[in-house]
């Protein structure tokens, strides 16, 4: 009996005109690897490599597991925990973003998601419940001196706001070591492309219109660099005609009002694009003022 070998694989491969498309799901996101001008065997090994790296990062930093560094940090024991070099770098970046955003970008704000889950939510969370969570939020209360981190009792951190973009850059870096061909990494809309395709074309990227799902309003051509979007129009609740989006202010515990539905930013790499997009959205109605000051290419919708 011949066993179908591909059925064991965690990814699929499709041949498209001029490139191979590898697809898998990691971090609850549809992930794509577009490989320009390669043969099927190389496409297969590169996609396998990309999947393995993305999965490694998911397992290491997911807050939904009980066997990783995030689980140890969030265990609530108030101990000093020594973290490894990769975690140091991610926390350093989070720490920097916390400072650069005056405390709006906060990896300790994830606990608010218990109240603001936006899943068939029709009522605002109880104000008293929100207030009760606030003492557990605030990265300035954590004691971070790389490689040692101590979280105050009750504080939990979530690197999900950086993890996907980080995975994109990491995978791109690995692919870069393996191939001289052009490629594009797309993890749920967070994207990196290494160079012009062999036919001198850029990759054409369709950005989904958050107000008309399934339809693309924006086409962006990307040759080299990172592209990331922040904002998600599916996650909101409307109460008494007031729309509450899913970007939460860690200082008040409430959604930030008046901002664009979605921000897309182009930068040198995907993490940089992602951080700029997220911090922009956290500025609410001043998102565009923030982006103008960054001197970067951006798209609002």
């Amino acid at each position, binding site marked *: 009996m011949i066993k179908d070998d591909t059925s064991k694989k965690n990814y699929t491969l499709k041949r498209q005109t001029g490139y191979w498309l590898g697809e898998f799901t990691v971090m609850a996101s549809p992930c794509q690897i577009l490989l320009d001008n390669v043969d099927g065997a190389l496409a297969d090994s590169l996609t396998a490599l990309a999947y393995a790296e993305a999965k490694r990062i998911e397992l290491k930093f997911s807050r939904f597991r009980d066997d990783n560094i995030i689980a140890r940090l969030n265990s609530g024991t108030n101990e000093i925990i020594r973290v490894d070099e990769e975690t140091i770098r991610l926390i350093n970046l989070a720490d920097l973003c916390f400072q650069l955003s005056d405390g709006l970008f906060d990896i300790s704000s994830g606990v608010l998601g218990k109240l603001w889950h936006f899943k068939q939510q029709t009522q605002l969370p109880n104000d008293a419940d929100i207030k009760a969570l606030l003492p557990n939020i605030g990265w300035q209360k954590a004691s971070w001196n790389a490689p040692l981190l101590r979280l105050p009792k009750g504080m939990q951190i979530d690197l999900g706001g950086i993890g996907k973009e980080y995975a994109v850059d990491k995978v791109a870096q690995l692919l870069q070591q393996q191939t001289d061909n052009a490629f594009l990494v797309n993890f749920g809309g967070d994207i990196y492309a290494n160079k012009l395709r062999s036919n001198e074309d850029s990759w054409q990227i369709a950005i989904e219109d958050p107000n008309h799902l399934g339809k693309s309003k924006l086409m962006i051509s990307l040759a080299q660099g990172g592209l990331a979007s922040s904002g998600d129009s599916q996650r909101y609740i409307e109460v008494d005609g007031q729309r509450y989006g899913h970007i939460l202010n860690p200082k008040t515990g409430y959604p930030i009002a008046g901002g664009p539905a979605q921000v897309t930013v182009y*930068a040198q*790499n995907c993490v940089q694009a992602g*951080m700029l997009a997220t911090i922009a959205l956290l500025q609410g109605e001043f998102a565009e003022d923030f982006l103008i000051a960054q001197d970067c290419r951006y798209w609002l919708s």
Partner: protein
Amino acid sequence: MQLKIKIKSKSKSKTFTNISMTLAAATCALSTPVLAQPSELDSWDVNAGLLIYAEGDNQVQAYEGALSLTKQIDDERSINVKGVIDVLTGASPNGAVAQNKAQTFTRPSGNGSYTTVTGDTPLDDTFRDTRVALSTQYQQQLSRLWLYSGGAYLSKEYDYLALSINSALARDFNNRNTTASLGFAYAYDTIEPEGGIPNPGVSVDNPNNRLTDSDTKQTLDLLFGLTQVIDRQTLMQLNYSISDVSGYQTDPFKIFSVVDSNGWANDYVYENRPDQRTKQSLFWRTKYNIQPSGQVLDVSYRYFWDDWGITSHTIDSKWRVQLSNQHFIEPHLRYYSQQAADFYRVYLDDSQPIPEYMTADYRLGELQTYTIGLKYGLPIAGNEFSVRLEYYLTQVSGDDSLAKGAGMAGLDLYPDKSAIMLQSFYRF
């Protein structure tokens, strides 16, 4: 290509600072491969250095060995302990002027004498000492933005004991792009020259030319510093320091020629410097990292002035060029220019009363120093080894017409001095 969709017209706007640059630098660091695990906290970081310094004409020679140990106690605290031993030999100018005759001097200790031949600048050949110095420095991160450091220093040579303590506080501002620091140091030195402290202005041949056995000097330093990250490549530093020295600052081994109208030195007296001195300096430094070649250009300028009338300018530049295989070369150029202290004289006229303060020490005279050097570094067994070779040339200047009369006609009162230094470091 850029497409911006205004969601609404806004009446309000807000001003933001540009953080892209900082983010770009931080995110680049994020994706560089993790090469090695950070060193264990309980290991000591050891730096060892050897230095050989030799002045021209067989003047001062120095050999120095230094060992520096640094330990990261935990992530917030570190401690450094350093020991230095140096041995000095050779001869150094005693302050007397050259003469068209041989000169004989009693040794500073009062035991024995030495003779300088015709035309030569008199050198005291008893310059020989061993110095042992120990210091310790402690650093602690007080909070996210505050850094404290404090230390103590002790050095002992045959006739000199130096003790000092220091303390500094630094704070980061402006997304850690700016660091301001404030430091102070206090030093207490005791000198106990062989034979005692000489009586200034009194002849070296006078049997009653000694005052006390020892004397002391106290120094208080204050330092204000500002370091600013200009962009991803450029770092700028600005320091101001003020230093108040009180106590015995005279060099008990330096003497003065008392010269008659024919230029002959018939007597020698001990020098004298004020008990009070206030020194100030302004220091500006820029480090520029040339990307992507990894070259580093390090340029600094210092302006120094004090109430003895000395002002000086120092321009220093180093250019580090990265070669392949982690080798590097670093050319070094330095220029130093100094104006003389108000009480600097080459000699005293016997027709004039002896002034209260006077020195003939060329180091307080008008001079220019040029330094040219090259450092070469390479990894040995995975650790950095480097060796530095430097050449110094000091040009002392002054009024040539002072070489007067039969006693000094045709003599160079301001001989140039040169020195070579060879230094090596190993870090493991």
